[in-house]
């Protein structure tokens, strides 16, 4: 009998091995359906939606310990009905405790900061606010923070002296070391991220038309933000692959607390904005140590647009005309000269000590 029990246990263990390999908690068996790659449907608007969760990927994300229904709280039954609500990032996690406060973990405080920023929006928006980014637009939870294969032994050996649970020590190490290392996007990635909306001509046109219709004040550089950055010195150097050069956030987020500030981006007309005219010198000085008011006057979003910068617009035209005219005149002069000299009998090669072999075709007076 005990042998049979042992066999049953072995079979149960063997059958549950695939799920044991998943490092995250799936107590509510959501993966029962969502583990299938073809799980999805075409929605009412014709978009194909994929509901497939890759367990081996999710198990490496920062949310791997959060049960699905902590975020997808609106699911009350299984199989659940079509979902109308989105996941809001300001929800409290009932299963995860914030170790610093002992309260349920929540992104609410940073979420509130974000809502006050120029990008602030609700999860579900209609109209122009729907163009704004939500948390997951930027926080794509990518794998660049993939945990190390094995934490350094000389460190974890020290942890387990008191923290007997080795797995806890490993997790703690991964959690802290990842935040100490620089894991934010590099310059090119940030420019790319911001450009996803700020270079989208349809979004720009929508907001411009609305601003004109309602009299709402639009950012001075809003319509050319991405394209003018690309033409600027910063943009060019960033494109060349330089990692130190200023990207969007280096100027538009406050250097006092970069990580907080990227969530509370403000238009330049707001006195709290690092690119407000009163704060520009300080912002420039992050990199350009000797920058003064004159330096801060340099336009980091140069444009030749006639409405936005008449000076540049006409300068560009004058340059083009002067260049073309100079070239045409000089080449014309050379041709005219050649015709005149050829008429007098000059040839192309100096032979027997002279190039003047041909007979002059001039009419002698």
């Amino acid at each position, binding site marked *: 009998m005990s042998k049979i029990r042992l066999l049953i246990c072995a079979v149960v263990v063997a059958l549950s091995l695939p799920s044991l390999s998943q490092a995250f908690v799936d107590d509510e068996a959501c993966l029962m359906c969502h583990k299938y790659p073809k799980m999805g449907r075409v929605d009412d608007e014709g978009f194909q939606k994929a509901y497939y969760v890759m367990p081996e990927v999710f198990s490496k994300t920062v949310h791997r310990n959060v049960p699905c229904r902590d975020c997808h709280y609106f699911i009350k039954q299984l199989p659940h009905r079509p979902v109308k609500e989105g996941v809001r990032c300001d929800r409290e996690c009932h299963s995860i405790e914030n170790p610093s406060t002992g309260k349920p973990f929540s992104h609410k405080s940073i979420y509130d900061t974000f809502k006050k920023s120029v990008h602030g929006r609700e999860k579900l928006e209609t109209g122009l606010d729907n163009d704004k980014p939500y948390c997951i637009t930027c926080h794509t939870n990518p794998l660049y923070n993939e945990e190390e294969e094995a934490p350094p032994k000389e460190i974890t050996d020290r942890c387990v002296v008191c923290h007997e649970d080795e797995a806890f020590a490993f997790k703690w190490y991964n959690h802290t070391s990842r935040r100490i290392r620089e894991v934010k996007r590099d310059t090119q990635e940030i420019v790319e991220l911001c450009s996803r909306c700020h270079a989208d001509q349809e979004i720009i046109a929508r907001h411009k038309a609305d601003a004109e219709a309602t009299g709402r004040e639009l950012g001075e550089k809003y319509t050319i933000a991405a394209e003018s950055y690309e033409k600027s*010195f910063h943009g*060019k150097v960033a*494109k*060349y*692959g*330089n990692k130190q050069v200023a990207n969007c956030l280096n100027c538009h987020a406050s250097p006092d607390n970069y990580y907080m500030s990227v969530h509370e981006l403000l238009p330049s007309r707001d006195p709290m904005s690092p690119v407000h005219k009163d704060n520009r010198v300080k912002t420039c000085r992050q990199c*350009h140590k*000797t*920058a*003064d*008011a*004159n*330096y801060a*006057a*340099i*336009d980091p979003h*140069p444009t030749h647009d006639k409405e936005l*910068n008449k*000076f*540049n617009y006409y*300068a*560009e035209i004058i*340059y*083009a005309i002067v*260049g073309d005219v*100079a*070239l045409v005149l*000089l*080449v014309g*002069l*050379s041709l*005219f*000269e*050649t*015709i*005149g*000299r*050829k*008429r*007098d*009998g*000059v*040839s*192309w*090669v*100096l032979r027997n*000590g*002279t*190039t*003047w072999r041909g007979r*002059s075709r*001039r009419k002698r*007076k």
Partner: protein
Amino acid sequence: MKLSNDANKVLGTFLRQYKISAEDVNDLEEIVSMMPEDRRQIYKNVESNPVGDLFRYSVHIRIQHLLTFTTFLLLAFTGLPIHYNDAFWAVPFNDVLGGVEVTRVIHRTLAAWMVLSMVYHLVTVIGGTLQKMTLGQFDIARSILPVMKDARDFVADMSYHAGRSENRPEMDKFMYKQKIHYFAAAFGNIVMVVSGSSFIFPEFWNSVLPADYASHFQEMMRLSHPHEALLALLVIAFWHWYNVHLAPGRFPMQWTFLTGKLTREHQIEEHFLEYLRCLASLPEERAYLREMLVSKGLVSVSKDIDARQNFLFDQHRQWVKEQAMQEAGQEPVAEEKPS
């Protein structure tokens, strides 16, 4: 040949400045009177050595030209792939050099060499001018500085090319075309250095400019650097190279930039006034020209009349006498020939 007013002026100044002796002046007077009125007869019949006959550029100028054109071309070849870094040809070019960041370092290093070449040029040109002034041998007409005569020369030359006049104007050591080119290059160099330095040292440039103009200045510099570079490259490719390599009479190459010498026919055609100076200072050139004119039967038919009309030689002989009288009792009349 009866000398023109311009020639009278230039030659008269040269004879005094270089204290040409009475004997040399006698010889010069004779050879000048033998020259036919139609200058084309002279430059069409002289013998020229392709690598050059008559001295024109010192070794300093030749080194500066080499430095400037090598740095200029390399700057253009590294600058264009930086500016057009997305272009299909720029990507492999930058990759070969090690990426656009490396191209930028090379570009800036070359720029320093070009600035060095400019400084070298300024030192030699200013130093040489001061030296000539000290020796009393400076003549603005012989320098690269533009004078009113250049405008007249331009009009006269256009008239010749249009077939409306028989001869090209009598031009000096630097003709109008070369003066335009020199100052265009000088202006271009300054624009490139100022705009290039405003990219490397923006804080400096903006600290010396009024705040209202600081932004416009940077914008202008950003526009100027590629525009001026492209213009310079096109002018060099289509104009300068045409003039010194492809134009009839210059093909396949003028050797002046290497040997420092100009062919005789070129000097007589385009720099006749400088050729008169060569005749005044080089007895062997006078001997050659005399022999050529006689052997080809080109001696001016109005030789004796012309000789009487060129008063400047008499004036110079008079001046030599006066100088000798002033120095009488101390030194004999200087007879050595200028080197």
